[in-house]
């Protein structure tokens, strides 16, 4: 019995020690560093990845629309340039359309759209990153990530969100003319740095939009979002679900070229 107590004591001390070091480490993080880590955790898991994405868009009158797509991603540098390949499966009238992005944080993205019915590869002007992605309540920036250097960050404190310990950070855009919000708050998981909740406030300071992460699972050692939701005050909501998430698949660069717009890489879309 004594031995067991001793063991529990040692384990307890040990765990305590690990946690204190961890939080001591974390205590040293600035708001900017936390936001950068959150950006990496949410948008840069692994060196590449694929997921099936389903969005259920509900408008203010309760009408539902479904968007289903497969998303392939490759990171060129962690926190830097990324390539996205999005193959639309549903609704039927956009089946086979492909949307491809070369994301340049701090710069202008390159975007392409492929329309199979006319075999057309189109370049898409992409100045407005705050417009809706595929008619959902998510913006392009919500889907591919907002440039962290576009905002100033302020650590408002440590909180508890459900059972999770989180950092609460306020982000204020450096150029307010480019966005429809005045600032947004984000709750970032202290352990895995996933942003678990975001609240966007309009120019008058009223709550405009809430983004939440509702289900997380560790896949290939990477904490991954399985379900999330964005709700706009008085304007309905979009629920997003991810399926068959896989990381570090060794995507070749050729997947993210005109070649696979015209001939989709079916192997990765199944």
């Amino acid at each position, binding site marked *: 019995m004594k031995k067991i107590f001793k063991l529990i004591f040692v384990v307890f001390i040990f765990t305590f020690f690990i946690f204190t070091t961890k939080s001591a480490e974390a205590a040293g993080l600035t708001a900017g560093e936390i936001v950068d880590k959150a950006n990496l955790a949410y948008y840069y898991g692994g060196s590449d990845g694929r997921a099936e994405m389903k969005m259920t868009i509900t*408008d203010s009158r309760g009408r539902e629309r479904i968007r289903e797509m497969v998303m392939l991603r490759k990171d060129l540098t962690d926190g830097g340039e990324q390539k996205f390949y999005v193959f639309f499966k549903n609704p039927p009238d956009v089946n086979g359309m492909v949307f491809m992005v070369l994301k340049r944080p701090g710069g202008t993205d390159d975007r392409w759209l492929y329309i199979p*019915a006319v075999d057309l590869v189109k370049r898409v*002007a992409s100045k407005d990153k705050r417009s809706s992605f595929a008619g959902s309540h998510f913006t392009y920036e919500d889907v591919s990530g907002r440039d962290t250097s576009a905002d100033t960050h302020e650590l408002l404190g440590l909180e508890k969100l459900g059972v999770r310990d989180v950092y609460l950070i306020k982000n204020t855009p450096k150029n307010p003319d480019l966005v429809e919000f005045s600032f947004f708050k984000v709750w970032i998981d202290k352990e895995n740095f996933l942003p678990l909740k975001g609240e966007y406030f309009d120019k008058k300071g009223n709550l405009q939009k809430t983004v939440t992460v509702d289900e997380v699972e560790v896949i290939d050692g990477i904490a991954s979002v399985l379900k999330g939701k964005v709700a706009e005050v008085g304007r309905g909501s979009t629920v997003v679900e991810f399926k068959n998430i896989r990381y570090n698949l060794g995507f070749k660069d050729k997947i993210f070229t005109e070649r696979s717009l015209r*001939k989709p890489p*079916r192997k990765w879309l199944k």
Partner: protein
Amino acid sequence: MTKKSKKLFLSILICIFFTLPLTPKNLVANELGGFFEGAGAFKFGNEKAVKNNYNFLETRFQLKANYFPEFLEDNEGELFFKGEVLGDGYDERVYAYIRESNISMVIYDLIDLKMGRQILTWGTGDLLFINDQFPKDYISFFIGRGTEYLKVPSDALKISYWSKYFAIDLVGTLFEPNKSLNGERLSFYNPFTGEIEGSSMSLNYERPSSNPKNIESSLRLSRTFGSVEGALYFFSGFYKDPVGVLNPISMSLFYPRMNSYGFSLRGPFLGGIANFEAGFLESRDDINGENPLITNSEVRYLIGIEEDLGGDTKLGLQFYVEQMLSYGKYENGVPLGAEKRDEFRSLLTLRLSKFFLAQTLHAGFILFYGLNEDDLYFRPRVSYNFTDNFKLSLGANIFDGANDHTNFGQLQGNNNLFLGARYSF
């Protein structure tokens, strides 16, 4: 529906019905889709020459199927089929045809092959084509069918080589002409009579024979320079419009031989996407412009920009020029009293489009304005997705021009209002 068309429709249905259970299990498509559509266009111009008071009135069923055969898995093999059954109220007939039917695969990771009937598009213009010599159906576009019907399928073999630095596409196609104005559904200017006519009976068209040496070849060399895409184009084949006169007495036209050489650039500019494209079209049956019965060689230029104005609003502008070569010889060859075109013919286009209601409502227009010929074409269109499957669209084709012989001037009076309802699955 006439008796004959009913019969045809029935026989198609019966064929489908009986072949379905016979299809081996592994031949069942991996993906199926398509739509049912009812659509029509009603004339509101003063045109009287064409037979009906509507340009088209039809029901359409489209079925597309993908199949990924196991034995071609290593080659990313894919079979694709897109077929349509069309109940055409204008022709009072039922048509069944294959729009696409092809096999595509990857060889040695470097080469993509696509063989069979396919839609082919390249180049940078918005509804203006310089180096894209693949066939188009302008009649469908001008009467208000869906934009996808602007492209006519080609029976082709396409071989694409993709290296890290550049790509080569080589396409061999069997000749397929444009569906250009001929009096079918829309009236047109008959250069022989100098009249606006509304029947396709008056002119005769002589197509190149389906001889292997008449296979057309198209080549594109492309690469990117950072964000800018550059391409070189080469084409050897025939004009897709009947721009040669075979016999003025019998009013016979033909499709002269043509080579084209061109290039294009496309990339970010002033916060939008700019494109520049040029091409030299060499009229091979009349290289020096000596023959007044065959079109002269031309140089074509296009410059365009698309801007994202924010709030799901897009603006597009294009300036397009056709320059006729050996113009002096052309001028001398124009018969007395006949209409003469300018050496430089330019066109401006303006496109504005916007999404509303969470991108379920789309409204926009494109305007073509001929600077030399003082003619215009205006095409507004609104579409609304009631559900993910059901879409309603409404639009108009409006033509105007000072003269009967110009591109859009000949179409004045053919103004129409089109609408369609489509259920996709």
